[in-house]
């Protein structure tokens, strides 16, 4: 969207989130689900970073940890230079205005007993932004901006279709004039023809308001369309990160390649050439494989991969660094 965003808005260093597994009468901890296990990356002001991965990859937990909707086990998240874990309650609340989330299921995230006007207005009330008349004006502006009529104000969520509900969720997220929005599978539950409407709206808003997005999705086609850079997660780790073109056109990690090969294409000729699917399934994040976590499914795996966890290294990159965590990743063919 913007040409070369330079300023780091969100800085993530060695972020971990482990969920304890407890058993027995004493609820003793017997293990941990390593949902997110050591992530380091930056999100630049004005860019859209796509975060892709399959179930158990930790992509949703990552989004929540960035907004401190879950408390990280270790590591740091800094927003515009402020380390979030060191902020007091009041300062964190002020920062929260600038960071919002759009959820997958707009219906589950909208209170069915509140009118649309009250839902969109609520964050303004909580953060005490403007006076009563100002808040009402702002609600009207927001509804209009996301393509809903002012008449929507006095109606309830069940009166709207899935696509319209997602517009309401977006209006609510925009109400506090955030700079950073985490969109967690924001279009996955919508029909194809409606997905395009919502993606176009998100892109228009980014252009107009200079928003920064973390766009979390399992649909690689849509991620390719909307993202400036893309991070690929597997079992709690980022295995590859680079510009959209580097990751999609010149993938380095064998998992990224398998993931891209698996994407169905609406073209029978292209489908006939699709290579056979990667075997196996994602192992449990409670008991990740030794060494490289992808080695049991990897066509390139050697003894080294079974024993030694690969470091993330820079492997070229056209406009920005292209990072990969693999012992064997070579330059693309």
């Amino acid at each position, binding site marked *: 969207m913007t040409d070369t965003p330079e300023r780091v808005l969100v800085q993530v260093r060695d972020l971990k989130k482990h969920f304890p597994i407890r058993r027995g009468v004493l609820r003793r901890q017997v293990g941990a689900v390593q949902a997110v296990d050591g992530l380091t990356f930056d999100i630049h002001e004005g860019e859209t970073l796509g975060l892709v991965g*399959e*179930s158990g990859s930790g992509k949703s937990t990552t989004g929540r940890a960035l907004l401190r909707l879950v408390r990280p086990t270790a590591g740091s998240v800094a927003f515009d230079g402020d380390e979030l874990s060191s902020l007091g309650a009041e300062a964190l609340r002020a920062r929260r205005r600038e960071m919002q989330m759009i959820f997958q299921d707009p219906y589950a995230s909208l209170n069915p007993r509140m009118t649309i006007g009250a839902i969109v207005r609520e964050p303004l009330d909580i953060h005490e932004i403007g006076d009563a008349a100002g808040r009402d004006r702002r609600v009207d502006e927001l509804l209009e901006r996301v393509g809903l009529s002012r008449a929507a104000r006095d109606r309830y969520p069940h009166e709207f*279709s*899935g*696509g*319209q509900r997602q517009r309401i969720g977006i209006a609510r997220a925009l109400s506090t004039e955030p700079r950073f929005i985490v969109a967690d599978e924001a279009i996955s539950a919508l*029909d*194809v*023809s*409606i*997905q*395009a*409407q919502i*993606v*176009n709206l998100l*892109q228009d808003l980014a252009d107009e308001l200079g928003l920064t997005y973390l766009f979390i999705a*399992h649909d*690689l*086609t*849509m991620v*390719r*369309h909307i993202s400036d850079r893309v991070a690929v997660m597997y079992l709690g780790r980022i295995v590859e990160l680079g510009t*959209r073109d580097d990751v999609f056109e010149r993938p380095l990690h064998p998992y990224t390649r*398998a*993931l891209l*090969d*698996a*994407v*169905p*294409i*609406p*073209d*029978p*000729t*292209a*489908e*006939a050439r*699709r290579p*056979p*699917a*990667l*075997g196996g*399934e*994602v192992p449990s994040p409670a008991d990740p494989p030794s060494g490289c976590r992808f080695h049991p499914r990897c066509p390139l795996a050697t003894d080294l991969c079974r024993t030694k966890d690969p470091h993330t290294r820079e492997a070229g990159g056209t406009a920005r660094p292209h990072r990969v965590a693999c012992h064997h990743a070579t330059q693309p063919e």
Partner: protein
Amino acid sequence: MSAPAESPVLEVRGLITRFHTDRGVVNAVNGISYTLAPGEALALVGESGSGKTVAALSVLGLVPPPGSVEEGEVLLHGENLLDLPDRAWRDVRGRRVAMIFQDPLTSLNPVLTVGRQMTEMLRHHLDLGRDAAERRSVELLERVGIPDAARRLRDYPHQLSGGQRQRVMIAMALSCEPDVLIADEPTTALDVTVQAQIVDLVKELRADLGMAVLWITHDLAVVAGLVDRVAVMYAGRIVEIAPVARLYASPRHPYTRGLLRSMPAFRGSTGSRLESIEGAPPDLTLTFASCPFAPRCPLAEDRCHEELPPLQSTGAGSASACWRWGSVEP
């Protein structure tokens, strides 16, 4: 449409299925007709509320109340299933026409092991003894690519992954070597690499066993490499049906074109904006005297708002329900 060379294994004629609900009559399926040749794979593609799932359930007499099939015929080898007494249905379902669903957990019994469920079904349908049924179960699980099959028989459904559960459902569906497999969004809940595995498996099994496949989906991409023909549904009707290559290369209905255009390209350049279809699908409690897609259609003219277009041949085994099909650009 050109008649298939062989007589069809399944022929649906003028199917109408309605739901009588508190808020009125929902016209879920509004008179659809299609044929399925032996060994052929046909996709029924549509968005939510298009009637695709009800159309599939209607074939097997599984429409839940307050819905029912009110008109039409479902001919399996020429015999109208809708005339069958309830007892005879049991012989059709599972044995001659099998179905797999989006969520296998709702079709598997959570308190019985996989082995118990498979062997009971085999003994019932194929009249096998206990040992023979167990041996056959292991063979079937191996056939669908489940490693360590004999041990998996002792597992309960929740102990398997989503992909493995779908493989178990496919194994059970294949056990009686049905003439027709109906697959209702079987890969929608799966991760993309596992989806690719299941699609590969169904392709391979279809080639080996020569069964016909009716694949229900919202995703035009998934079926592009899987089926011979595609039927696109909108508001309970088939609005376009065509051989797979032709449908993607030159759609003859503005809705099909819109669906294809609203998906971003996965290869080549990335456009800055997606072409979306404005508006939303219609309320199915309405009945249509004009084209149901007209309010969203960029090509709509007066006639489209006045007369309901019938599904008419556009040549080469294709048909479109659009007055302006000749003006649809690829």
